[in-house]
């Protein structure tokens, strides 16, 4: 046992940063999994460059992974980190701004050689010039120590250097009193075919741990106790995985086969990867020639009676626009996943944003209403996908699922649901030939029947031309067009009948209500909790359903003196709420490709209250 002091902390934020080839994402996710296994609540924020392997040592090649773990509820990855692990000078330069005052820097000294300093624009070595005196600086020669631990393994210096992230990981495991076993097992499995690499990583990690134990430079280590969490089986999950699992689960609950048409695009591609490995669940994935073929193939499959799904990110959604109109017109079920990223155009593919809300709501020719759902957290992506499928097949409509890069790649502990307790999704193909009409209406939902090819006696034709209600024949009748436009709108409006009422966190009425939607939930909740703990009365309304809005949203908004709509765009939900409910809401907006910081939210509310 270590004779060093063990201090207990409520929560810690660590940021691992290095070259994009340094394995920082892997290091971060290993630390995350281990912390989850010891029972902490967690939130993570991977922040990586678009370049796969940017030139070494450059500022634009820096890859970061921030994780926040604690013994209480954790809803966000944290505004600032307590510890910054910087594998080189560029990593320090890029990330120093996110380190809190007097925070810990663990720097790999080899990464601060002349070349690295030059590439990152440091005239003098910041580890030596006293510029970091306001932090707790631990300069460790990670590269050399790793090499020493591996010297009898007959590996090239390049291969040896690749294991230095495991040294850093071992050191951090020591510093935060984490077990090594989960990562040991992972190494064993992952590198089972290359035992030498497995051995090298194993040794590097242990060397890092032992270094912490024996070195004089660390005098304190820290402990973060497990968080009180609802009993059950947990796994760490990111949004993209949860989305994929939610789709497959919902399909089974609806007794449908999944057809997933997609074209690779950051940050949505992992959904395609996950689903393509689920072939024994009856999932057919199709990597189409382009975004348009991705969505149209899914529409074709939906016509054939499969659960058609397509996934993309902003620019891809722009390309799918016309086809989504076809799905609206032909009233076929379809799930369209948009993992939003910073735009416009190509924008910043690896950075998050919420600026596609209006595109989802209105981005089609003609009056083409489409329901929109936005998951709140990585784990909620599962339930949002489930909900999207339910709405698509029960109302016979395309449905948008608006995720974002932040929750797609961010992760949190997820209480694994019991599948038998999830509701069935009631859907039937129409088979009755008696007086069949392809555009007949379900009285409750206004959905038309799903009559699929192969059903004897129901041969019919559909298409993008306006249809006569009932018969489905082409119609240019003015009255019929009005009727169909109204019906398609009302069909979407009626979905609100199936939604639970929106719930306010905090007081039901008062001075300030913060409204948020999508992936900003965790940060806003953190900010609200921080304000509550300081005695500031603020309520929070988080919307998962953007179209239709839940029935009591207007009523809630009217119960507050100030309504602040926080979103990572220039005020898109704000426009919707102001025009729908005529409330004088104001926006809290940020478009930097980054999530909100809780302190930014708190500062805005404080200003509002003090004005």
């Amino acid at each position, binding site marked *: 046992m270590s004779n060093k002091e063990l201090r207990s902390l409520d929560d810690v934020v660590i940021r691992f940063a290095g070259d994009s080839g340094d394995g920082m994402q892997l290091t971060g996710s290993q630390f995350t999994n281990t912390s989850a296994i010891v029972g902490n609540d967690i939130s993570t924020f991977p922040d990586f460059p678009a370049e796969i392997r940017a030139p070494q040592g450059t500022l634009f090649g820096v890859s970061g992974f921030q994780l926040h773990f604690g013994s209480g509820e954790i809803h966000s990855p944290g505004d600032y980190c307590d510890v910054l692990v910087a594998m080189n000078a560029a990593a320090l330069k890029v990330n120093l701004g996110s380190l809190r005052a007097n925070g810990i820097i663990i720097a790999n000294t080899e990464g601060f050689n002349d070349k690295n300093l030059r590439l990152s624009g440091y005239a003098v070595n910041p580890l030596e010039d006293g510029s970091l005196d306001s932090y707790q600086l631990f300069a460790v020669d990670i590269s050399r120590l790793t090499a020493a631990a591996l010297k009898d393994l007959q590996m090239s210096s390049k291969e040896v250097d690749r294991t230095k992230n495991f040294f850093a990981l071992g050191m951090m495991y020591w510093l935060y009193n984490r077990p090594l076993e989960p990562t040991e097992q992972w190494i064993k499995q992952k590198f089972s075919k290359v035992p030498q690499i497995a051995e090298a990583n194993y040794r590097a990690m242990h060397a890092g741990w032992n270094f912490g134990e024996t070195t004089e430079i660390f005098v304190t280590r820290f402990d973060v106790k497990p968080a009180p969490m609802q009993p059950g089986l947990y*796994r760490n999950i990111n949004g993209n995985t949860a989305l994929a699992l939610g789709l497959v689960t919902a399909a089974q609950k609806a007794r449908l086969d999944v057809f997933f048409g997609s074209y690779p695009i950051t940050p949505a591609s992992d959904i395609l990867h996950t689903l393509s490995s689920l072939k024994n669940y009856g999932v057919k994935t*199709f990597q189409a020639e382009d975004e348009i073929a991705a969505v149209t193939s899914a529409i074709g499959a939906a016509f054939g*009676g499969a659960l058609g799904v397509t996934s993309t990110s902003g620019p891809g959604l722009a390309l799918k626009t016309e086809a989504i109109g076809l799905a609206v017109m032909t009233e076929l079920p379809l799930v369209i996943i948009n993992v939003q990223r910073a735009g416009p155009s190509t924008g910043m593919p690896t950075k998050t944003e919420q600026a596609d809300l209006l595109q989802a709501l209105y981005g089609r020719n003609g009056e083409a209403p489409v329901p929109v759902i936005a998951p709140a957290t990585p784990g909620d992506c599962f339930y949002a996908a489930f909900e999207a499928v339910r709405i698509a097949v029960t109302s016979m409509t395309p449905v948008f699922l608006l995720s974002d890069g932040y929750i797609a790649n961010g992760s949190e502990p997820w209480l694994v649901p019991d599948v038998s307790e999830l509701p069935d999704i009631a859907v039937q193909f129409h088979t009755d030939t008696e007086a069949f009409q392809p555009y007949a209406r379900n009285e409750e939902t206004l959905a038309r029947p799903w009559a699929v090819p192969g059903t004897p006696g129901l*041969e019919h*034709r559909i298409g993008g031309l306006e249809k006569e209600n009932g018969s489905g024949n082409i119609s240019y009748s003015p009255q019929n067009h009005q009727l169909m436009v109204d019906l398609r709108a009302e069909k979407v409006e009626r979905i609100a009948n199936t939604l639970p009422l929106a719930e306010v966190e905090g007081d039901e009425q008062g001075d300030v209500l913060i409204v948020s939607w999508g992936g900003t939930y965790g940060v806003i909740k953190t900010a609200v909790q921080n304000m509550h703990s300081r005695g500031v009365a603020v309520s929070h309304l988080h919307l998962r359903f953007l179209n239709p809005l839940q029935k009591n949203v207007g009523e809630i908004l009217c119960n507050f003196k100030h309504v602040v709509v926080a979103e990572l765009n220039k005020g898109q939900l704000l426009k919707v709420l102001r025009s729908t409910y005529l409330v004088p809401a104001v926006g809290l907006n940020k478009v930097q490709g980054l999530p909100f910081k809780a302190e930014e939210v708190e500062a805005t509310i404080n200003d509002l209250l003090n004005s």
Partner: protein
Amino acid sequence: MNTLLDDLRVIQNEPVDIQYTLKDFKSDQEVRWCPGCGDYAILAQMQKLMPELGVPKEQIVFVSGIGCSSRFPYYMNTYGFHTIHGRAPAIATGLKIARPELSVWMVTGDGDALSIGGNHFIHLLRRNVDINVLLFNNEIYGLTKGQYSPTSSPGHITKSTPMGSLDHPFNPTSLALGANATFVGRTLDRDLKHMGAMLRRSAEHKGTSFLEIYQNCVVFNDGAFFSYTEKETKPEQALFVEHGKPMVFGVGNDKGIKLDGFTPTVVKLSDGYSVDELLVYNERDLTLATIVSNMTTTPGMPRPFGILYAADRPCYEEEVSRQLATAVERRGNGNIQSLLNAGDTWTIS
């Protein structure tokens, strides 16, 4: 677990006694092409062929894009999907992957398939999804009232090219061969017998069958193909290839094609050549198909019609289904609860 589609397949597989006539394939919709349009003849041939194929009509789907030809599905009493401009190949692909047991036909035009939908078209062909593609080529945009198309001849004067088209045209059969199509054919709207035979071969081919049909647009490009359809010029201008038969054409088959290196040349049988010296067509030979297809744009050569190429290659949708079956063989039918429970998990009690 059985899905809704599994339930439906049980009904589909029940044996039925099919005794269709042409009338069974006529829908209740009034046909609205211009009087004299070549599309009528194609529709009639298709409705004539359908009863002979023995496929239950509920298992047949016609998918189309946008354009005059794409109205086709409305007139067939089968399932049909009139989609959006250029995207029919992708919609048909999704449908066929989801429902490999269906007989899927795609009807398109020169603008729909080769201009706005060019990308989907070539990818459909290389994947070899078992879909029968009928491209009605009239070398003009009809529905938008007379602009040039990607198959219009250079210099063609149209509403959008008052000084003549500057575009070099596609030869659809060469494009299809270049995209590795497994079946490439060409026929004419005014040769009913040949068209009937070609449609039948298209239906029988396993994989994507591509059939280009020269179709007369009576309003905006009347007579574009008359040299190949009218009896005064047809014998000299059109060459109908047949597998295993020498390539002859001309009045009384007085001419034939010989290969000079890789270059096809026209020889007159009266000049001392015998039929035995002529090129014998082989529809399974890609090189020959490419050479003969390129005769389309070679001045002085007759234009080739018939099955230019037919080859066997696994169908995409069958391979997709095979991978699913293999996955089940290897890992068993997926259990959702075990899927959710997978990964690094921990229990909080």
